[in-house]
């Protein structure tokens, strides 16, 4: 049970003790709040005393009478606003002229409880106020956490970009200082490694662009009838130079429907990433099987390979950003670590699911299932 502090500022002792009595045993609950709220009542007889208690105790809720002996209630309200305190304020007042009401509203008072009030009226207002306070705080917390997550992403990203730059710079300095002698032949592997690191940076940047596109651009105008057979052929075509090099065979099967209503870019992202991984992590001479199947309710895209596979621990980390599986078998496989996290983001946007089955040395199978009805009901971004 959580306790909120309520400060009641009123020069009438009857009002103050009334509030304490009514709210002393009051609970507020709401389905989405994980705990009940109870209240601890603090009292002040003047505006000045009120301010002193506010500074010291930081109440969560302020019940403010306007007509006070010294400074008026609206001045206390102004003080709270200027200090930017996280306090919700309700005016309890028997003198509610329009001017006062407008000023109080402008200064952030969210409720007016006219005197005399019944216990039910007071409780109803407090209940509303408590829920509002809760929602405000949760929203702020999520914003702050969102920022933290973005910072973490950016810092890992800057690490991923700095590392290849440092490596390439190191090799160039070795050449500049002739550290391995005067003959260019000595630097063949330094040059080769620099070119490889440049390639990996290029891939990372391309993936990042996909990532930002998926995160921020969700335009309904891009939706159209997408021909799945063509999309699958294109994905296979894109990866074919590498596939030929590794002698990989493709088996494709598109059945059930010709087209789906979607953003073609999204499905290119899904297919390209899954098919490219299926080739990258495959064994020479292996096979990649791509199947698409439509039913009335959903369509399924499955990409399977006969490659190096992975164990359960490796599979659990799969969809995290920058996560790459590092073991003896993956030593020479390049990648940004963003591909699958992008795929997952896209699948989430279409309210779909992605499943992975895999066994070490036997291969992996990725299955994406997208509900057809949801396509017209896309989430608008992350």
């Amino acid at each position, binding site marked *: 049970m959580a306790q909120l502090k309520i400060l009641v500022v009123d020069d009438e002792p009857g009002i103050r003790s009334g509030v304490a009595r009514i709210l002393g045993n009051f609970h507020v609950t709401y389905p989405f709040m994980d705990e009940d709220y109870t209240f601890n009542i603090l009292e002040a007889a003047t505006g000045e005393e009120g301010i002193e208690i506010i500074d010291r105790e930081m109440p969560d809720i302020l019940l403010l009478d306007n007509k006070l002996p010294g400074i008026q209630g609206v001045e206390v309200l102004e003080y709270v606003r200027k200090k930017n305190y996280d306090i919700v304020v309700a005016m309890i007042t028997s003198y509610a002229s329009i001017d006062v009401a407008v000023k109080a509203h402008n200064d952030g008072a969210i409720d007016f409880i006219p005197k005399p009030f019944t216990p039910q009226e007071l409780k109803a207002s407090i209940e509303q106020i408590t829920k509002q306070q809760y929602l405000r705080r949760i929203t702020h917390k999520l914003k702050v956490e969102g920022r933290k997550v973005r*910072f973490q992403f950016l*810092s890992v990203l800057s*690490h991923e970009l*700095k590392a290849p730059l*440092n*490596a390439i710079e*190191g*090799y160039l300095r070795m050449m500049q200082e002739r*550290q391995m002698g005067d003959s260019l032949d000595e630097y063949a592997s330094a040059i080769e*490694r620099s070119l490889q690191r440049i390639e990996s940076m290029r891939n990372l940047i391309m993936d990042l662009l996909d990532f930002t596109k998926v995160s921020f651009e969700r335009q309904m105008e891009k939706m159209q009838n997408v021909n799945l057979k063509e999309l699958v052929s294109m994905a296979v075509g894109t990866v074919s130079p590498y596939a030929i090099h590794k002698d990989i065979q493709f088996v494709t099967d598109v059945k059930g429907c010709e087209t789906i209503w979607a953003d073609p870019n999204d499905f290119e992202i899904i297919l390209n990433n899954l098919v490219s991984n299926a080739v990258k992590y495959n064994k020479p001479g292996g096979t990649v099987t791509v199947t698409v199947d439509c039913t009335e309710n959903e369509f399924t895209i499955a990409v399977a390979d006969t490659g190096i596979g992975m164990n359960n621990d490796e599979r659990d980390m799969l969809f995290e950003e920058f996560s790459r599986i590092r073991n003896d078998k993956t030593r020479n496989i390049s990648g940004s670590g963003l591909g699958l996290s992008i795929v997952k983001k896209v699948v989430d946007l279409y309210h779909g699911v992605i499943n992975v089955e895999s066994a070490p040395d036997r291969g992996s199978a990725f299955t994406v299932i997208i509900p057809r009805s949801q396509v017209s009901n896309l989430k608008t971004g992350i």
Partner: protein
Amino acid sequence: MTKIYTVLLADDDPDYLFQVAYYLRKAGFEVMAVESQAEAEQVIARMKPDIAIFDLMMESDDSGFILCYKLKRKYPEVPVILATAVSRETGITFGLSGGQDREWIRADLYLEKGVRPEQFELEIRKLLKI
């Protein structure tokens, strides 16, 4: 006969590892260059280096801290340099829950990874007092 000092160097970036090891060997050090926290632990179990340089993030986000702790627990007098590519400005801490945990990770020096090899050598000589 002057002593040849042994450097244990651990980093999962193979190019960085190659370049730093190359430079230090040219400068007269014997370098054991390994690409993972696991391999570094194997070396520590087998022998005592004169100085160690650990990358902060390898298999785990805290690899450098873990290795520092393990090495200092076994050989408290061996200086440890932690090499980090993460700029201080982001203010992100990786994995450690707070000040108390950091008590046992007393690296002798934190060095940012962009630093020139000559400076690296200078810092190593300072720590070894040579």
